[in-house]
């Protein structure tokens, strides 16, 4: 039995004539300790998929099984790193992490909790900024706080929803390494949602493209057989890497073209001409 299983998931928003099926027929199974990446275009329903897995929303049809049990609501066993950090701006770095730790380990004393907070803040190398508010931090630092917050709860599975999407390329690379480092320590099950194929290949064991929505569904999976720890510069010359990368991009391009050719809707531009400002004031 797989660690996380999605069976025939359908998700529809709206009702009656307005109903849009965002996800249809999603089947996915992730083994324990595996690092899986799902790549897809923006707006293809990636966040909906993540929210289904972490329990924020429920599927219209089908079931999500976590360790054989249907997912009902959120759980501390699945830590989430959101796309837009979602730190509480009125709390400091330490307080943001502390809030999560306190909920996860309600029985521990305040001193123990503080130790956990310090340990995880140090792990993302933010100790100098521990008493700062999110507003005083850069985008990369904020996302590191979000990483610390999610991991400090010691979840059995980490779900990352485009965690590095809003960062610049350099910070992105650094954080990829950091996340991999932390993940490598205890190899928790991880699910990464991203729009960057290279990021997926660099980080994951398995890549699954999401065919864009509406009616998004998962495409064929690609195994990444590159040994860890991976090196970014070396990987560029790796034949395996190039092949997988090209295959995935080709696949995504093809479904993009397919979608374009399928589009039957014609868009007629309205007949408009610029306003005649000169005559208006005569």
């Amino acid at each position, binding site marked *: 039995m797989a660690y996380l299983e999605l069976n025939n998931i359908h998700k529809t928003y709206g009702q009656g004539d307005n109903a849009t099926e965002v996800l249809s027929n999603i089947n996915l199974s992730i083994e324990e300790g595996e690092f899986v990446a799902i790549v897809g275009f923006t707006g293809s329903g990636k966040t909906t998929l993540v929210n289904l897995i972490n329990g924020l929303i429920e599927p219209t049809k089908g079931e999500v099984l976590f360790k054989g049990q249907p997912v009902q609501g959120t759980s501390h066993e699945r830590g989430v790193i*959101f796309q837009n950090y979602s730190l509480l*701006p009125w709390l400091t770095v330490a307080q943001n992490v502390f809030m999560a730790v306190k*909920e996860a380990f309600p029985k521990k004393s305040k001193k123990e909790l503080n130790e956990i907070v310090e340990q995880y803040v140090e792990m993302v190398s933010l100790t100098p900024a521990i008493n700062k508010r999110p507003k005083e931090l850069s985008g990369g630092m904020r996302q590191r706080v979000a990483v610390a917050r999610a991991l400090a709860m010691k979840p059995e599975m980490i779900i990352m929803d485009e965690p590095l999407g809003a960062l610049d390329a350099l910070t992105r690379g650094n954080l990829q390494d950091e996340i991999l480092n932390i993940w490598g320590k205890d190899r928790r099950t991880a699910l990464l949602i991203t729009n960057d194929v290279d990021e997926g290949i660099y980080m994951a064991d398995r890549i699954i493209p999401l065919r864009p929505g509406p009616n998004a569904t998962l495409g064929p999976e690609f195994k990444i057989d590159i040994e860890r720890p991976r090196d970014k510069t070396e990987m560029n010359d790796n034949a395996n890497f190039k092949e997988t990368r090209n295959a995935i991009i080709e696949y995504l391009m093809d479904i993009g073209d397919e979608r374009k050719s399928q589009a039957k809707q014609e868009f007629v531009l309205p007949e408009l001409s610029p306003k005649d400002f000169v005559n208006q004031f005569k």
Partner: protein
Amino acid sequence: MKQSITLGKVTKFMGLGFLNTFKDLFTGKLEKEDYINFLRKSVVPLASILLFIGLWHLGAKSLYNTEAEFKIEKALKDQGPEAAEAMRACIASGDTSCQPNTLPSPSQVWTSYKSLLKDHRIIKADKLAFAEKTAALNEKRVAAGKDAITYTGRPSFVDQIFRSLRTVFAGFLLALLIAVPLGIFIGLSPTLKSSFNWFIQIFKPVSPVVWYLLVFMIVKTLLIDSNEDSSFTISFISVGLCSMWATLVNTAMGVSSVDKDYINVAKVLKLGSFQKIFKVVLPSSLPLIFTGLKITLSVAWMVLIAIELLAQSPGLGLFVWEEFQNGANDSNAKIIVAMFVIGIIGFLLDRLMLTIQNAVSFDKTDAI
């Protein structure tokens, strides 16, 4: 990074950033831009104040002349040329009995201001003397279980200002205690929201006068046995009820429109409802709640005058009304003095709220 509190930061925090230009002027180190900045922030407002006073002076003078002409014409028509001459001479002599009654000039207002202060000092001295005189007697009365004798003379202008401030703060506190908790409940529960909506929509636009009458009807009956002066109670309750709506609506809106990301965080961390309200919902709606409270305080100060006037509560409102009824030579000038005092206190109250808001809310633009 070392953080220090400087005078500049404090004034900016309080929304009084324009004061910094004066400081810069004395500390030196001025560039050309600073001079332009100084001109814009200090000299230009000063010039506009002077212009305002000048225009006021000219306007008051022309109104004065019109009124004087009219008085002389009237005397000519009713009583003949001799009476008209007498009237002209009387007006020119500055005799108080025949001065035209119109908009007072700035200098008259200033004179009235000084006379009001003088009046205050006299009354204060009077009060002190009274307290000294009755101290021994009062001690005996209290020992014998009787009420002490209190000063029952006329309140001074400054006493009236403090009475008004007390009324406004009591009313504001009442509004805060009703509107914030109610707003939180309404914002959290869609059921409560729809059951309270009609109530808010109907009572929000009700005028201060009607609120006063409503409160009067109720309080009069409730306090039917007591001999105490109920004007303070009636006026502060009316002020509170009049002004609480902005806070109620803003709190409900702030609570019901918390950023979905924060709600998701609360869900993922599995916060309990108590934790969720106090750790996530309330902090995130604080800026809106404070905007509501700021509006509430300024509305409270605005309706206070009308309500005091109706309730005969001896504050600024009653002062204005009594001066208007009085019709003495300097009554108009005193009304204008009260107008400026009301305006300046309103401005200071607004800054006070802004300072508190900056201190407690997370959305600081330039925190200390």
